[in-house]
């Protein structure tokens, strides 16, 4: 499965970046391709390209602040608070597999 997503927390200092790492590690462990854009206090990094968004099976928004969703029109978007990623990154990825009915390989 191809996952793209955004992480963004209130302060934009720490959680944004921890969550990115946790999502990437969990998704890779389950055999998924993943790219996460961070929207922190230093501005957007690892920005998703139009092509990447187009090819993705799902968009994961792990954000505690509002982010612009217009890029993801027509895509399957799953929006969760960042705390869910902090608590159980693997659980989040597994849940996405369930929702999309794509079994974990």
């Amino acid at each position, binding site marked *: 499965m191809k996952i793209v997503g955004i992480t963004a*927390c*209130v302060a934009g200092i720490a*959680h944004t970046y921890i969550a990115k*790492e946790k999502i990437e590690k969990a998704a890779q462990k389950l055999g998924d391709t993943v790219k996460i854009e961070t929207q922190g206090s230093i501005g957007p990094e690892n920005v998703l390209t139009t092509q990447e968004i187009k090819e993705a099976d799902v968009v994961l928004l792990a954000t505690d602040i509002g982010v612009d969703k217009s890029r993801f029109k027509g895509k399957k978007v799953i929006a969760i608070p960042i705390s869910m990623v902090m608590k159980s990154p693997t659980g989040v990825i597994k849940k996405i597999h369930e929702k999309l009915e794509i079994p974990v390989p």
Partner: protein
Amino acid sequence: MVESTVESLFDPEIIDLDIDVNTKDEAIKYLAKRLEKAGYVNNLDAYVKDIYFRESEGITGMGDNVAIPHGKSSAVVRTGLAIGHTRHMIPWESYDGKPVNVIFLFAVADNNAGSQVHLRLLADVAGRLGNDEVLEAVKTAKTPEELHQALFQQ
């Protein structure tokens, strides 16, 4: 340039791996004082107040006995990362409900000019803490040297 590498954040002067405190408040104030003593913070009370402001916005206990309190404050004159390992587990609001014995206290300057580079470095350290293997090595580090290795050499 040394200043622009993530390892430049690592300062043994603001690292204490054997802190004898029993509460979250004692731990925060102890590490904040270390930051003040080492010249990162010029107004202890104001800095601590800003840390608690961030605490009021959401949980900083990231699970696995690790906490990442951070204060963005005008009292911060130099961006830094104080690291503490407490002798006892202390109660701390956390995502897994567990207490904490490893604390990363971020000191972030409030002005935007010139702080972008440092914020990038803090983001890099935060990202490393999202990696379970790094976190495990960080938690078992007994000396600043071991901690340095855990954070930067994996």
